[in-house]
């Protein structure tokens, strides 16, 4: 213990050591605070929009909710709000939440022409990326590790103390030095995050998993620092080499990988399906109404025999036509989703080689703020849309009047359940890479000890 406290005093006496640890603590706290503020703003936006929506919906109900009201008008003019509040851990890993919509209104018309609508974002603000705890961990913490650990061996050699140190009796000198620095960095990162998790009532398992990611990722960098630090003769060149590694691993290679993935897996199906759906829906106006109904009955046989109406127009035909449009592009929708998932999978595979990418992917999967979280929200919207149109069919196909009271019976959107999970593969990859580097680094340190002692 006394040796450990002696080592601690040594770190605290160096300006660089204390400075960089305090800086990390400050940045980590700022990031957590800013992440909480940002997610709080999203919740406020949802509350604000919900209020507006209630007023708007009441207006629609007042206009169209008459004793002999037509369900068609009600369905056509009723936009219903869906929303996706930030999951508890989103404050630490905001992910795509700054650019993906978290409120969307849908009505009983074709879903595919509504689902991909964008919300108002300021693209220039989104461009540099979000400032959150995950960013501090993935980008900045490695630099602090480098600052603290690059000269562990070279610094002693340059100071002329290496031989003396190695001749001292006792074991575990390097383990103590490395372990302590590693623990301090992890501590500076983890404390603000843990406080944030408590404040936001985040689930314990998710919090622990994110801390595990941080621990593994930092272990990788500690191993890196050891490996490079022992290979170099001078502290300055060790620092330069390590920063070079950092640039390659967090700036250059991920960018190259991202360009390659975007090139290899195009995602144009979204536009294709939108165009196709529009053609089908509008073509419906030019073909016999019975043809549209026949296609509609394939999946809605319960309404067969109820399609007849007098005159040129009936709402049930319009809504059937929109549903037929959605069903006709189901294959395209699946292909579009598949292309987005393929991009995700390839990013995950990149993470097997790049610890920064693995850590980023794992953090956002745990926090449920990655594209899979967005898919879950979209699926939830689709399920709600399904309920909504099925709610209207009995009114439309049996010509039942839609009254004021029926507006109150309309389904309301229930937010999705958290779908965050601890991804095994990236974590395992991260653990393996970290373990490999740490053990290689320790072996080198041990060899140096041996060599210098001899």
């Amino acid at each position, binding site marked *: 213990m006394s040796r450990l406290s002696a080592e601690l005093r040594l770190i605290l006496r160096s300006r660089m050591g204390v400075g960089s640890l305090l800086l990390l603590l400050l940045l980590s706290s700022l990031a957590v605070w800013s992440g909480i503020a940002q997610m709080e703003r999203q919740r406020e936006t949802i509350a604000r929009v919900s209020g507006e929506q209630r007023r708007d919906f009441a207006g629609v109900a007042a206009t169209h909710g008459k004793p002999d009201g037509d369900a068609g008008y009600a369905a056509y003019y009723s936009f219903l709000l869906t929303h996706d509040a930030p999951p508890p851990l989103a404050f630490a890993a905001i992910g795509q939440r700054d650019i993906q919509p978290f409120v*969307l209104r849908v009505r009983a018309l074709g879903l595919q022409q509504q689902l991909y609508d964008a919300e*108002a974002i300021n693209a220039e603000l989104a461009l540099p990326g979000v400032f959150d705890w995950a960013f501090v961990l993935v980008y900045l913490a490695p630099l602090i590790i480098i600052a603290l650990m690059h000269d562990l061996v070279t610094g002693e050699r340059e100071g002329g103390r290496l031989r003396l140190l190695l001749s001292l009796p006792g074991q575990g000198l390097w383990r103590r030095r490395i372990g302590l620095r590693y623990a301090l960095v992890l501590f500076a990162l983890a404390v603000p995050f843990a406080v944030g998790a408590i404040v936001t009532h985040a689930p314990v398992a998710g919090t622990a998993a994110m801390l595990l990611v941080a621990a593994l990722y930092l272990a990788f960098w500690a191993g890196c620092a050891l490996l490079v630090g022992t290979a170099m003769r001078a502290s300055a060149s060790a620092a330069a080499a390590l920063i070079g590694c950092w640039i390659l691993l967090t700036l250059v290679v991920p960018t190259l990988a991202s360009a390659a993935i975007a090139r290899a897996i195009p995602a144009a199906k979204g536009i294709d399906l939108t165009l196709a759906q529009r*053609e089908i829906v509008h073509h419906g106006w030019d073909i016999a109404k019975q043809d549209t109904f026949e296609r509609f009955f394939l999946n809605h046989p319960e309404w067969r025999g109820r399609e007849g109406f007098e005159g040129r127009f009936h709402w049930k035909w319009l809504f059937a036509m929109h549903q037929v449009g959605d069903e006709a592009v189901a294959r395209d929708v699946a292909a579009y989703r598949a292309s987005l998932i393929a991009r995700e999978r390839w*990013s995950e595979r990149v993470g097997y080689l790049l610890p920064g990418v693995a850590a980023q992917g794992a953090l956002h999967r745990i926090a449920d703020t990655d594209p899979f979280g967005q898919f879950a929200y979209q699926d939830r919207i689709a399920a709600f849309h399904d309920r909504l149109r099925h709610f209207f069919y009995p009114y439309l196909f049996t010509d039942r009047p839609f009254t004021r009271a029926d507006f109150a019976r309309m389904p309301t959107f229930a937010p999705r359940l958290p779908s965050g999970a601890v991804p095994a593969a990236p974590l395992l990859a991260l653990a393996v890479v970290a373990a490999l580097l740490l053990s290689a680094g320790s072996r080198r340190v041990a060899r140096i000890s041996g060599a210098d002692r001899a």
Partner: protein
Amino acid sequence: MSAATRIAREEWRALLRNRAGVIATLLLVALVLVASFVSIERRDRIEADRARYQASVDAGFDRQPDRHPHRMVHYGQFVFRPIAPLAFFDAGIDSYTGNTIFLEGHRQNSANFAEARQSSLLLRFGQLTPAFVLQTLAPLLLIFLGFASVARERERGTLRLLLAQGLDGRTLLGGKLLAQAAVALAVAAPAFVVLAGFALAGVAGWGATLLLMLGYAAWLLLWALLAVLVSAWAHDSRAALAALIGLWLIGVILLPRALPEAAAAQVVLPTRIETEIALHRDLARIGDSHDPDDPYFNGFRQQVLARYGVSRIEDLPVQYAGLVGMEGERLSTALYARAAADSAGREARQNRFVHAFAALSPLIAIRQVSMALTASDPAAHLDFLDQAEAFRYRFVQTLNRMQAELIPHIGGEDPRVSADNWKRVPRFAYRSYDPLRDAGAIRRSLLVLAGWLAGLGLLFAVTARRIGRVAR
């Protein structure tokens, strides 16, 4: 040969001996070239895709059968935003803004299918463009090459020796700067050659191209200057490295990321949903065309009857409902324009807040210059949105007029206008955006960079005197 160039030559020799430095420099140059080619290919593909989509939806519009014009108002038109030729150099916000809008009557739809929304989180690490390499990575290279330039001499004791031999502090520092500045420009040279190629080919204007080169030259010189200065001030080269990396981290990575959050907290950007609801409320306040006693539309009816010199709607030579549709479109378009201006104003306020910090983080200045000149900035996107909206109004009103003028002559249960008419409906023709149209923002950002250079130059003079004094 002057003393300063001799110093510079010595510095180059030292840089050449530093194997890691040479490799890093070559890597960066390679990266600039790779980024250029990847990015040019990417831009060309996007451009071809969008042009193909535009042609196919335009042909699709022509192919529509005989229809009631109002059906065509809702069949609508898709427009795809062409991507500027220089956007290969700096993708700007292109990946974050939707690139296609569905235009129809009495609705303003969002621009959808932004690449960033369809990408994994990897994209947020940055996009491989020459701008990314020059803005983010090149300063790091210059730090690596320059951090030891003076500090090394001090550590080895050669600094004192040189100055004792009568070398002037200004000459020494000037020589070091000359060496580093030459490297900085050499690193940027491949990118400049590619840019010049675009200008020579007539694809991009010389004005924008030269200003872009000027901006990046200033940006890189700034870092060369900074590296030599910090190296001259630092105790040893390690401290110089730490200080420079710290400056880079704060100026290039941290501030640009942290400031947007502060800006977003200051100015609330309303959601499209709120805008839409407010707009319909305002529209309802103006009047209800279905209400026979509505004062606004009664006034409108009187005007129409007076214009055609008839007393009854049935006597009009045109379809009254078509005219009401046109009036409704005019009203809602004005409201949409107001909402869009409000939203653009709020975004501009947020962005101005960030830009105000350019004096602290010159990256913000070079990013502005770069995005603006490559026509990939918010101004260029807004210009596209404006063009699309103006076009929407024109084609919807063309169809509404067809309804008013042609339908009375057709009549019947299901009146349809001949499909030949669809060819008369205007098509979207994008007028390419001239980045120098409103050069105020570019000038301001260039001035910020010039201010940085001037300030560092001043510091340079002071440092040179100090170094000279220290030795004596």
